[in-house]
């Protein structure tokens, strides 16, 4: 298991270099002088020279990339152009909001998705099954930000139960979590249902029935337990999507967070901030996938063989 974890971590290195290279290149691919993209208009020639020296902008692109990486590992992501503060500080301020929102949404969609999928599987081909799966299809096709806006309209504007926007206290988390969670729920419910139906047809389940075990025990302790393995795999893949959802939903609810920071930076062409946010999001996706893979390997030893070639 430790060997697998180490190998899996090593495999992440080339991915990190490739992704960071692309994000580094953004400043150089945008038309115009990279210095103009990294500093505010009206900067003194001295400030420009300082910046050029720090990033080695007169050196070959290859060297610049490693200088940028070296600064990165020192925790220096440059200064945001518009708000004139270090990018690292801005990210550190906003990250906790995104993490809270993301993890709560993940919990919500896992819990609701698994319960919905399991209920549908137990009542297979009945009205309950069709109703749940119909709702699930609806949830997966409606764009997340529109659900968010409708929830705001219904529960914040009309009923006044929750705040419309911002991040003050727990009540402001309810609608955003619901919005992201509903999107993720669909997929998890679908996977749970298919996996449970698949396992309920296995021989050992037939044996348990023959032994006279009560049906609810079989459903929960034997079928659902085995069905959770593919669910975890999908969840791991979903971590990235939930982060993507968080980007959108934060913006809808005008919550502080990485997503809102990124969209604002993109609209203001604040490239150092864009680079910092994209890098953080990419790292989060990579770590999410890593955690998912490790969890899966811990549960299902067979999946560790995938790296033994």
């Amino acid at each position, binding site marked *: 298991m430790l060997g697998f974890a180490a190998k899996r971590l090593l495999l992440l290195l080339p991915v990190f270099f490739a992704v960071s290279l692309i994000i580094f290149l953004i400043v150089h691919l945008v038309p115009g002088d990279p210095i103009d993209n990294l500093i505010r208009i009206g900067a003194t020639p001295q400030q420009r020279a300082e910046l050029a020296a720090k990033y080695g902008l007169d050196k070959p692109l290859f060297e610049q990339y490693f200088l940028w990486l070296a600064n990165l590992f020192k925790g220096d992501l440059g200064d945001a152009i518009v708000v004139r503060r270090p990018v690292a500080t801005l990210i550190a301020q906003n990250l906790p909001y995104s993490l809270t929102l993301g993890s709560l949404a993940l919990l919500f969609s896992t819990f609701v998705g698994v319960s919905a999928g399991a209920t549908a599987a137990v009542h297979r081909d009945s009205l309950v099954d069709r109703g749940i799966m119909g709702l699930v299809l609806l949830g997966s096709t409606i*764009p997340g930000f529109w659900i968010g806006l409708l929830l705001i309209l219904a529960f914040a504007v009309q009923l006044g139960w929750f705040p419309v926007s911002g991040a003050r206290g727990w009540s402001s988390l309810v609608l955003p979590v619901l919005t992201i969670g509903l999107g993720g729920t669909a997929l998890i419910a679908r996977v749970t249902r298919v996996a449970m139906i698949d396992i309920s047809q296995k021989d050992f389940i037939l044996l348990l029935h023959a032994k006279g075990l009560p049906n609810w025990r079989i459903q929960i302790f034997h079928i659902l337990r085995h069905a959770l393995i593919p669910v975890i795999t999908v969840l791991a893949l979903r971590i990235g999507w939930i982060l993507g959802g968080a980007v959108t939903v934060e913006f809808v609810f005008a919550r502080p967070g990485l997503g809102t920071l990124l969209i604002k930076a993109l609209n203001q062409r604040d490239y150092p901030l864009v680079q910092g946010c994209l890098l953080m999001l990419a790292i989060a996706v990579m770590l999410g996938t890593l955690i998912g893979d490790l969890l899966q390997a811990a549960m299902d030893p067979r999946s560790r063989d995938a790296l033994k070639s």
Partner: protein
Amino acid sequence: MTVNADSTFYRVVASPGGAIATVFLATVIFVAIFADWLAPYSFEIQNLPMANTPPSVAHWLGTDEFGRDVLSRIIHGARTSLKVSVVAISVSVCVGMFLGAMSGYLGGIFDRIVTAVVDLTWSFPEILIALIFVAIVGAGMYSTMMAIGIAYLAQFTRLTRAQILSLKNETYVEATVSLGAGPRHVVFAHLLPNALPPIIVAAMLATGDGIILEATLGFFGLGAQPPIPSWGGMMSNGTAQIFTAPWIIIFPGLMVALSVIAINMLGDSLIRALDIRSQVRPA
């Protein structure tokens, strides 16, 4: 597997879901094409005294903060949404099929590089890939198109490659090769046509996702720039009016949702008609 177009079409339209979806989508496409004749008002001429009026006989879906007719803007927005997602996904499918077929058929170092890049992008959500791309080329309708195309490239490359790999060892392909057919002939005349049905269905489902992605980028203010109306852009402007004129947000969003649901219904009935569920949507 040969696909008889008539019978497949018949089976799709004969299912209730497929029929409703076909009629709805045909209407949206018709409206998008003839938007200039069908829209009751101009999409850009402002009429400030009429700002934020609720739905009425004169303005069926109300007016926005500049007094522009919401219905007319939705009709013109359909053109933007469809154009962006259809062009983006078409380009993505063509390039993805080419890359996937080459790497699946040729194998070797080319296959390794393509697979590595595809696996790399596969784990990242499409919205993140699209945002990275928009960061480079800037906001606008054409960069949204390219961003969506690139975001879905991995999916089609992967799908085509898997199809080619499974078809490559069929007896009829071996027979064609032993008769002296070159790689270009084998790939374009035999492998790709047979790999096509699941790719077409996947392309269709991706077009639905493309509409959502376009609306999302538009909502961020990064999509088609004013005065060109887009569903996402309309909702983006509408958020400021959420207390006074919620219809500015409700109706464009409804159109996005209905279009995507219709595309998914049509896709599902196509999957059933062609019997290719395991290839397109493996649980």
